[in-house]
């Protein structure tokens, strides 16, 4: 690959602006709505992508996919409703920023972290593709068990003042996550007799219920979702607030860089996705912060980490798809179908036989992110005005529209009822301080954790020592222990210093 080739690719992709811009718009609309995942949208639009030349089809799909990842953070920040699982961690600090009247800054942080996180990892992928494609081969079920545990430790991290309640919520979620058929014999477990639960608890209704519906049922207690001071600040929203968000992003540039790489490495692993990447990045960001106690109160790092990570996943997901022929996620699988329909053979040969397609995919991603920065950043000022809508109107619209969106993923009426059930559980959890995010982390990571654990144990015929049998796995175990011990040691040192003073 030469510079001339790369520049030619960029020029060609910029020439596809007439495809990229509508795809970004559609991706943003679909990303804001929980329930409409990029893979569902791409499947619905397959007749279009199969009919046009492969370069145009890929530019359309990639732009829609990236815009979707970016847009999931918008409702997470404004009304505490993550547009996708990858944006669930964004609610932890994004929504508190909105409540403080800093919605515009939070949105700008979300956009810049997403765009630059996506851009950095895309360029890194282009430069390091041959080596990155090998990582997926080293991350097997044993190592993935530890990666999942990194995400699960966030339950303890967000526990706050009442760790017992957070752990009950987390383990309740984990047990809900085990509902469905098991991974070896396909025997149903705790499905209450519903066929719709044989594939496990669907994520979208859980997400909608726990966040959107429960939050709407709580928000009707107040006239608006922001207090008087926040309202006045939102009414005075100026371009200066957008610039303030940009300044904060520049100030935290290193944070964007390293958390986006967390997303890239997790994205490379087939099966792991934006949700785990965002939660792990948030957990690591809090762990290495000088002021971990401020996380959850509405700080820029708490928005940057999950957003940069879940956009770092976008390029990572495509690495095993193109380099190994193993789709890194369901959206990547749809893209693979389109590529194969157009006669592309996945795997290392693709880079030799069709470099304009193989590298073009990543160049297209970089171009989409550049377009996104200029199209969505100016909108932050206007989007932030959502907080000025009275809850009299906001709450019913949120409840009923998200209930409809719950239908979107699997097209079952059952899922709408399930979302309402989760909404009531979420409301009770909210009012009694059982962390809904902890329940969601359990539901999200429970099935993945079980899948990798059972696979590892199956290979070792039930021998638990297999979990400590690989060098990379042991390094990850060491880092996990460090992640758990470091906060305790830091607290001990802080208390000792206070005692000395």
């Amino acid at each position: 690959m030469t510079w001339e080739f790369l520049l030619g690719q960029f020029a060609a992709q910029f020439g596809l602006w007439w495809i990229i811009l509508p795809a970004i718009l559609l991706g943003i609309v679909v990303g804001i709505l929980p329930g409409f995942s990029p893979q569902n949208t791409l499947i619905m639009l397959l007749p279009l992508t199969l009919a046009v030349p492969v370069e145009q089809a890929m530019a359309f799909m990639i732009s829609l996919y990236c815009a979707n990842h970016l847009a999931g953070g918008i409702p997470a920040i404004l009304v505490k409703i993550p547009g996708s699982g990858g944006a669930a961690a964004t609610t932890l600090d994004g929504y508190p920023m909105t409540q403080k009247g800093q919605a515009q800054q939070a949105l700008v942080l979300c956009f810049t972290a997403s765009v630059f996180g996506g851009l950095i990892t895309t360029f890194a992928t282009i430069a390091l593709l041959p080596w990155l494609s090998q990582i997926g081969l080293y991350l097997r079920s044993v190592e993935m068990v530890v990666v999942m545990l990194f995400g699960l430790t966030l339950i303890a991290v967000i526990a706050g003042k009442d760790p017992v309640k957070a752990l009950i919520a987390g383990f309740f979620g984990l047990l809900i996550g085990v509902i469905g058929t098991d991974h070896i014999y396909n025997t149903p477990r705790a499905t209450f007799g519903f066929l719709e639960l044989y594939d496990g608890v669907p994520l979208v209704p859980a997400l909608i219920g726990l966040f959107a519906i429960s939050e709407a049922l709580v928000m009707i207690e107040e006239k608006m979702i922001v207090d008087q001071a926040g309202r006045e600040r939102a009414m005075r929203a100026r371009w200066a607030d957008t610039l303030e968000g940009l300044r904060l992003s520049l100030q935290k540039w290193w944070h964007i860089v390293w958390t986006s790489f967390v997303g890239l490495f997790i994205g490379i692993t087939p099966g792991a996705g934006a949700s785990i990447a965002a939660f792990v990045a948030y957990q690591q960001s809090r762990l290495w912060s000088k002021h971990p106690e401020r996380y959850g109160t509405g700080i820029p790092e708490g928005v940057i980490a999950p957003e940069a990570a879940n956009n770092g996943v976008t390029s990572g997901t495509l690495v095993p798809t193109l380099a190994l022929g193993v789709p890194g996620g369901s959206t990547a699988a749809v893209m693979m179908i389109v590529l194969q329909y157009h006669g592309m053979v996945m795997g290392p040969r693709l880079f030799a036989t069709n470099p304009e397609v193989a590298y073009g995919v990543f160049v297209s991603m970089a171009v989409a992110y550049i377009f996104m920065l200029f199209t969505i950043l100016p909108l932050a000022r206007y989007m932030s005005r959502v907080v000025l809508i009275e809850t009299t109107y906001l709450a019913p619209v949120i409840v009923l529209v998200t209930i409809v969106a719950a239908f979107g993923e699997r097209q079952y009426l059952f899922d709408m009822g399930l979302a309402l059930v989760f909404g009531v559980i979420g409301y009770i959890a909210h009012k009694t301080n059982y962390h809904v995010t902890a329940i969601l982390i359990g539901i999200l990571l429970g099935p993945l954790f079980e899948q990798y654990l059972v696979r590892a144990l199956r290979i070792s015929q039930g021998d638990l020592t297999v979990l400590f049998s690989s060098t990379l796995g042991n390094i990850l175990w060491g880092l996990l222990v460090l992640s758990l011990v470091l906060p305790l040691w830091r607290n001990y040192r802080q208390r000792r210093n206070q005692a000395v003073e």
Partner: protein
Amino acid sequence: MKKPQGADLVIPALALGFAVYFFVSIADLAWEAKANGMVIGAILVGLIAIQLVRIGIGLAKGQASLGFSPLWEPREALGKRVGMVAVTIAFIATLNWLGLTLGLALALFAALWIMGARGKTLAIVPLAVALAAYLLFVALLQSDIPHGPIERLLS
């Protein structure tokens, strides 16, 4: 004043009930199918026991009561909250007959009325949202959401 902690028992009670059901449902399965759930369930039951002891100590010391007030306070929002859930149940139950557009417009009208909205907005908001939902879910994305009289008329 005693802290009402009866509400704090609702999530543990739900979790415990579910854990018991889970254990019963996996009793006859192979170890691979139940190992993970058994471990998670056992830890969950242990955590619930700790929470019960904590609440029990609060009750014994006279610092807590078994009140459920945190769940329905503030009282003035209770009617709106129950009404919203009832409207949502009715919307899901009638969706197959009314279809998305008409069902959503009627449900939103009822929910907004319960929330206290009056005047022109009571008609404009449901119609605008239902139209947007029709355009996105039916016209653009062509999802399989139930069709009713409006969708049949427009198709």
